[in-house]
């Protein structure tokens, strides 16, 4: 699609970002000491901290990734919503209060509070860095995604803008301003998502008229010898008998339709997919996209730069409503879901094939019953749910386990517990967090399904669904939603960078390497490490452009849960835990989950460009193996290293 900047959107956007930055500079003046820089003097009110939890947590993954996944595949994106929220139960019931009692600034402090071991600080510091960087990738990708339709810049420009802005925020302010930014942004995100949901319900559903967006040809007989000239005639080609067609048969055991490649003299090549209506076959328009020598070719023509020039058509429409009506008018929330359940929606499939240009991506229409859209298992990553393959089911269980365990292990969530004054405040702010995050996640289902039927989506990029949905409503709404989403990214990224710089300065340099910093120096070193981590994040954000940000976050959760959760839980609940056990568990959990991801079929196919079948591990999601592995490592190593003179912690 072609994205053009609208002046209103740009003004609202910069106003919003400017106010946020101004606020952080203003509030940041109060936070010059290291206490203030990392933990906001533990003076943040619990309600503000609770909403800031929501601000931290509802990252680009939730807003862009989940909405995008629901809008392209239906229910499956909602599985992430449920898993992300369930993780908070672990955080509240198990981790919040003890963690607050144990620590000072960072996750490593809490783990090490009873051992004074440099090894623990080293391991915990490194794992904080690893998880933060992994979590930063999807945020940066999300940033690029937002900038593109809003300002018309390229992806990498968006990533650079966000990266630089965040580094400025973090360097100028620290935890106080980050918290207030998160509070403001968290509130606005929930309020405007609710508003958008109300607008979706008020708009209801419409079925577009035949040929309004995509052409249909037919009836045709694919088996007949006259297919080519028939198609030529239907297309009103000047010389129909010179039309050439080629049929691409579906891969075995797939639900792909037959595709027909049509070459009409003097016109760009087009692709159509076969669709059955009763006994007769029709051809419905598909779309193609390929990059040749740096130029994008869409539907056989070079992509333009302005509206009205060649571009991929926006997608997202219904093909049938219950009772054959053309539109429903406004609907209640339950009615909205039950109507969709009985409708038929045009989803889009994707296939790569050699056409005029090799390796062209074909996007074809896939009319899908509402009841299938609203059940789990449509997304390729979740196909295990509907198949009988055990390995796919294990992959699904593995992901759901990682989501459940990941939240309570995320460094930027854990450090937020140090910004309130005591355990009770930690508890109350978590409850506020759960309420606002839960409400938002219920909205994600409506936002995603609303986007799915908005007729405004970009077929090449699911991350863009929420902003494009807003754009289909009104330009001002689009500007506000984009600005909120942008500050969402800013806030989450600054939280993560803060957590990483805390890990570097406080855990690694000061406690492991034994540097003695003055207060001023410690803050200065933290700021320098923020710049370095920020720069790394910018580079990774540019490299990982094409992946769904929700999916990327799923990986970050796996690494966090495998590396951090075993030691955190066992320290709290198993008296025989030793420092060596903790160190081993963190390292084994972190390295095994990272290695698993790097050797998985997904990484093979999307990052290295190799076949997924060559992957070294049997399924993509590491959690089911690496989380128990972390626990097992901790138990075995702890048992082997029990203090012999019984004066250690085992006896304490």
């Amino acid at each position: 699609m072609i994205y053009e900047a609208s002046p209103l959107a740009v003004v609202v956007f910069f106003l919003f970002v400017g106010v946020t930055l101004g606020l952080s500079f203003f509030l940041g003046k109060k936070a010059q000491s290291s206490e203030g820089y990392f933990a906001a003097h533990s003076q943040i009110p619990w309600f503000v901290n609770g909403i800031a939890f929501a601000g931290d947590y509802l990252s680009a993954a939730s807003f862009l990734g989940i909405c995008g996944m629901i809008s392209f595949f239906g229910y499956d994106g909602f599985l992430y919503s449920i898993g992300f929220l369930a993780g908070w139960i672990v955080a509240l019931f198990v981790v919040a209060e003890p963690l607050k009692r144990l620590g000072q600034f960072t996750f490593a402090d809490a783990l090490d509070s009873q051992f004074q071991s440099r090894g623990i600080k080293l391991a915990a510091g490194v794992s904080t860095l690893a998880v933060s960087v992994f979590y930063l990738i999807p945020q940066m990708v999300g940033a690029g995604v937002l900038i593109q339709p809003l300002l018309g810049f390229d992806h990498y420009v968006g990533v650079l803008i966000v990266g630089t802005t965040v580094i400025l925020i973090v360097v100028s302010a620290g935890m106080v301003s980050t918290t207030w930014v998160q509070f403001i942004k968290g509130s606005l995100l929930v309020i405007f998502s609710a508003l958008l949901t109300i607008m979706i319900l008020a708009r209801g559903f419409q079925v577009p008229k035949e040929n309004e967006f995509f052409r249909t040809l037919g009836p045709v007989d694919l088996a007949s010898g006259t297919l080519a000239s028939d198609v030529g005639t239907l297309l009103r080609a000047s010389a129909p008998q010179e039309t050439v067609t080629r049929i691409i048969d579906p891969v075995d055991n797939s639900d792909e339709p037959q595709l027909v490649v049509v070459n009409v003299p003097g016109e760009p090549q087009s692709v159509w997919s076969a669709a059955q209506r009763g006994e007769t076959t029709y051809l419905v328009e598909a779309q193609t996209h390929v990059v040749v020598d740096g130029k994008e070719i869409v539907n056989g023509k070079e992509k333009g730069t302005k509206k009205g020039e060649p571009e991929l058509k926006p997608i997202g429409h219904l093909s049938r409503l219950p009772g054959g009506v053309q539109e429903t008018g406004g609907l209640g929330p339950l009615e909205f879901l039950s109507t969709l359940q009985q409708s038929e929606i045009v989803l889009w499939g994707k296939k790569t094939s050699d056409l005029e240009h090799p390796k062209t991506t074909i996007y074809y229409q896939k009319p899908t019953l509402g009841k299938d859209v609203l059940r789990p298992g449509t997304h390729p990553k979740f196909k295990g749910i509907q198949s009988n393959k055990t390995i796919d089911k294990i992959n699904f269980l593995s992901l759901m386990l990682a989501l459940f365990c990941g939240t309570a292990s995320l460094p930027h969530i854990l450090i937020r517990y140090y910004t309130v004054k005591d355990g009770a405040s930690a508890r109350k702010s978590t409850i506020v967090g759960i309420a606002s995050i839960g409400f938002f996640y219920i909205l994600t289902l409506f936002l995603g399904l609303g986007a799915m039927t908005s007729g405004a989506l970009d077929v090449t990029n699911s991350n863009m669904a929420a902003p494009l949905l807003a754009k289909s409503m009104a330009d001002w709404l689009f500007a506000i939603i984009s600005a909120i989403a942008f500050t969402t990214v800013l806030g989450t990224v600054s939280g993560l960078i803060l957590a990483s710089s805390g890990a570097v300065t406080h855990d690694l340099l000061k406690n492991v390497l034994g540097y003695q910093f003055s207060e001023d120096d410690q803050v200065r070193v933290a700021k320098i490490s923020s710049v370095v981590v920020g720069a790394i994040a910018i580079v990774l954000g540019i490299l990982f452009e094409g992946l769904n940000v929700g999916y990327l976050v799923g990986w970050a959760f796996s690494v966090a849960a495998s590396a951090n959760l075993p030691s955190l839980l066992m320290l709290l609940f198993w008296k025989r835990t030793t420092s060596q056990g903790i160190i081993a568990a963190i390292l084994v959990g972190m390295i095994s989950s990272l290695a698993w991801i790097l050797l998985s079929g997904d990484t093979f196919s999307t990052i290295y460009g190799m076949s997924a079948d060559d992957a070294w591990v049997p399924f993509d999601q590491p959690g089911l193996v690496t989380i128990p592995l972390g626990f097992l490592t901790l138990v075995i190593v702890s048992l082997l290293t029990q203090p012999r003179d019984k004066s250690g912690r085992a006896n304490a």
Partner: protein
Amino acid sequence: MATRNARLGMGLFVVYLVLYGTYVFLNAFSAQTMEATPFAGINLAILFGFGLIIAALVLSLVYGAICTAGDSTSQEKEADL
């Protein structure tokens, strides 16, 4: 007091774990069950999902209420001593 909260937290955690586990295993091993539409023409997958989100909120409120009540009684006891 801290141990009492921890025990309560564990109990509620187990309750939620059972709910979440049921949901995940139903999805994985009995996907057809999730397609049933027991209420208002909405399928079980959506109802269960909403239910899990609401259950998280309800359990956290219960936990908060009991812990806060515990906080204040223990403070009163300290005041008596």
